[in-house]
């Protein structure tokens, strides 16, 4: 008995993984995904042609070209900062939509809604935390992205105008963050915004008018909450998406990312 066990050929890890791999590829589930005409229209085997098709045959073609400069994929050059800012924007949209289900932008309900979101909604506190920390992280990553671009001299010809769009996007990020800051309607929100908007009133000529329009009155109040809510969930994200589209399109039209140094 012992002898027969020893005589049996030893199965190495590699053989075992190969076997698992083969049985996986023979399985019904695998074939239903990679069968031509299914999720992958033409099936998928790793070949240069198919690597091109992954981009060319999908919506990703709007974002990425089929091929990029070899140096452009170096994480040490971009630190992924621009991409992460965009990803955080998506993450904030998703968590923000979740929050919208539980929030009413009125002076009587706002704070209470946040309070009950945290205490009686499943994952409510978690999602609110992610939204808040994600927002701070986005301000930080956008700012770091701008610094990275500056230090690489990436704003130089032919990318001058894309830098301008980038500065606008940074401003929009700050505005998005600042308008969201008021929404919990707690002491922190109210007085932080009071300090912020007081500065606005000092702008020459149109300062007090702009302030009046933004606040919906001479002082912060219930009107302000509704206005900033609409700005935060609708207007600024809308403008941001448009500028993001132009920003990404220009990255490609201006010849991909800059460098190498």
């Amino acid at each position, binding site marked *: 008995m012992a002898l027969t066990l020893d005589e049996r050929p030893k199965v190495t890890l590699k053989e075992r993984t190969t076997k698992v791999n083969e049985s996986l590829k023979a399985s019904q589930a695998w074939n239903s995904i990679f069968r031509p005409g299914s999720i992958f229209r033409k099936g998928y085997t790793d070949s240069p042609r198919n*690597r091109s098709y*992954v981009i060319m045959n999908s919506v*990703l073609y709007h974002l*990425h*070209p*089929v*091929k*990029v*400069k070899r140096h*452009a*994929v170096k*994480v040490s050059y971009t630190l*992924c900062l621009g*991409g*992460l800012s965009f*990803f*955080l924007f998506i*993450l904030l949209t998703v968590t923000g939509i979740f929050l919208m289900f539980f929030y009413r932008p009125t002076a009587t309900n706002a*704070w*209470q809604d*946040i309070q009950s979101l945290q205490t009686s909604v499943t994952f409510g506190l*978690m999602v609110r*935390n*992610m939204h*808040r*920390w994600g927002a*701070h*992280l986005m301000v930080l990553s956008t700012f770091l992205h701008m610094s990275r671009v*500056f*230090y690489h*001299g*990436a*704003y*130089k*010809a032919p*990318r001058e*105008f894309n830098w*301008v769009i980038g*500065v606008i996007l940074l*401003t929009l990020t700050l505005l998005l*963050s600042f308008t969201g800051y008021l929404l919990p*309607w*707690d*002491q*922190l929100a*109210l*007085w*932080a915004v*009071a*300090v*912020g908007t*007081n*500065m*606005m009133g*000092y*702008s*020459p000529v149109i*300062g007090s008018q702009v302030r009046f329009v933004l606040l919906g009155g001479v002082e912060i109040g219930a009107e302000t909450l509704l206005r900033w809510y609409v700005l935060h969930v609708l207007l600024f994200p809308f403008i941001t998406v448009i500028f993001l589209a132009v920003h990404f399109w220009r990255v490609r039209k201006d010849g991909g990312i800059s*460098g190498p*140094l």
Partner: protein
Amino acid sequence: MTEIPEHLLKRAQAARDKAATETGSPDSAGAPPADSRIPEALLNRSKAAKEGGGVAVAERVATGVVAVAPNGNAPIGTGPGGHTQRLLTVVKSGSIQDVKAVPVDKVHTWPHLLGPEFVSALACTAFLFVFSWFVNAPLLQAANFNQTPNPSKAPWYFLGLQELLTMFHPMIAGVTLPGVALVALILTPYMDRNPSNKPEDRKFLTSIFTVHLMFWAVLVIIGSFFRGPGFNFVFPWVEGIFFEL
């Protein structure tokens, strides 16, 4: 070995038989087939050329060679040296199109760019998830217009501005300086006429930028951690931190 279905084999056999009967037909002897798509006029002209009437000198010399064309040795119109093409002129690509592109070392976006992008997005989500698991977002008392907290601070990214307010008139600190900074940022690519992006060629500008960055960071840090009640200067290790994110 794959099995070929019966009906396909039959069809192939039928096609082969048909082809065999057609090659045996008198049509293939040399004259063009009756259903030729070449216009009558062209056929006549080529026949005339073969007989040597009204053609270019070069082609007339080649008549001997051309005569054997129907046998399949050389195509019609073969030159004196047996060449089948003539060189008219050479046009260098630079004269008709501006070739700027130099070969660039490129890699496929999938998987070389999408891979790292996906991983970094995953890492970012994981970080945010874990951080949110342990640290709760602040929610103070409900807003109360009659109770001003001391100190009241703007969000952290505006604390640099608030710090400037302690030094200058609000008109300057709140409007002029940030306005100038924003305009300067926007105009940077149009004012910086140095075409090089090498760090060693840009020492002046990078140092200017770094100085401003540091100046701004110091203002934000002072505003965040070194300002206590009444926005007076405090040391955080003495009086504590008056700061909420």
